[in-house]
């Protein structure tokens, strides 16, 4: 009913159908309605066909770009770069922790020696003053080193984000490859259009000499 109402509102009801609507011939009306629906379906299928072709062309171009730009290789490179960053940051954080672990006993030793000296001498001479200062410095160092150790957790926090990006890159790569292989774009030969790369200076020179360089 709604369809009929909107058809009438749209004013697109053919005169023939309009006449049939007002007639008592139910069978003829239904037949006319079928024709109208079929016409509309055909138009929709044509539009879907065009859409499918556009999508196919777009994916073919993507497949060609992937092959030409060597994108799958770059994705692997990107993943490797991130992995390297993870590894380098881990090494840097461990070196910092090495430093803190090395300095801590030294700070303790200075504090202990200063404490012994302070207790053993009653005179408030220069040596005692220096010992007091050394003791307070050692205590501050100890606290600073503890903060320094905690501060290295940036490596874990940033590393977790890098790992998430690596996983995301992997899923994007898989989706792209699936899309491309789904449409068979890579099988059309466009992959062969990838640029031929020279691998050495000799090859480059030979190639250039052919052009008179």
């Amino acid at each position, binding site marked *: 009913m709604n369809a009929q109402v909107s058809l009438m509102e749209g004013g697109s009801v053919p005169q023939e159908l309009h006449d049939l609507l007002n007639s008592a011939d139910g069978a003829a009306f239904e037949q006319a309605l079928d024709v109208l629906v079929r016409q509309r379906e055909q138009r929709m299928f044509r539009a879907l066909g065009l859409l499918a072709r556009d999508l196919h062309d777009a994916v073919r171009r993507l497949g060609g770009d992937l092959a030409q730009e060597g994108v799958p290789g770059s994705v692997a490179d990107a993943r490797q770069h991130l992995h390297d960053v993870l590894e380098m940051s*881990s090494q840097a*954080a*461990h070196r910092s*922790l090495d430093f*803190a*672990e090395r300095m801590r006993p030294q700070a303790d030793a200075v504090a202990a020696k200063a404490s012994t000296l302070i207790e053993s001498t009653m005179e408030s001479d220069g040596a005692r003053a220096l010992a007091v200062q050394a003791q307070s410095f050692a205590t501050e160092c100890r606290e600073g080193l*503890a*903060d320094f*150790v*905690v501060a*290295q*957790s*940036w*490596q*874990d*926090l940033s*590393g*977790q984000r890098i790992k998430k990006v690596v996983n995301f890159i992997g899923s994007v790569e898989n989706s792209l490859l699936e899309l491309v292989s789904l449409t068979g774009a890579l099988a059309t030969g466009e992959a062969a259009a990838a640029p031929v790369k020279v691998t050495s200076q000799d090859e480059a020179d030979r190639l250039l000499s052919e052009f008179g360089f």
Partner: protein
Amino acid sequence: MKILVVDDFSTMRRIVRNLLVELGFTNTLIQEADDGNNALTMLRANPFDLVVTDWNMPNMTGIDLLRAIRAEPSLKGMPVLMVTAENNRDQIIAAAQAGVNGYIVKPFTAVTLQEKLTKIFERLAASGAAA
């Protein structure tokens, strides 16, 4: 005393180890595992007094490790402190429901670690005295 530190990042394991030493756990054997699976194997093989675990780890996550510990009769009473970058409300609730003893959000300080550890050991002592 024996403490197991579980984290897939070696840096974080070392930081927690350093902080524990800093907090006076000097006569403590601190061991490390890089995921929940390895942690579970170590826990089954040897008795530990405390587990400090991360959440996000490959193979077995911290929450799954916690659930596995609570499901195993010989391990279920083990105190578990979660130290994680996960500050999502639902995840904190999930950890609480799974029976976590303490939850620390990274980045954290030595003071926070000390507070949570003190609370855990106080509660344990209280429940031990009551039993």
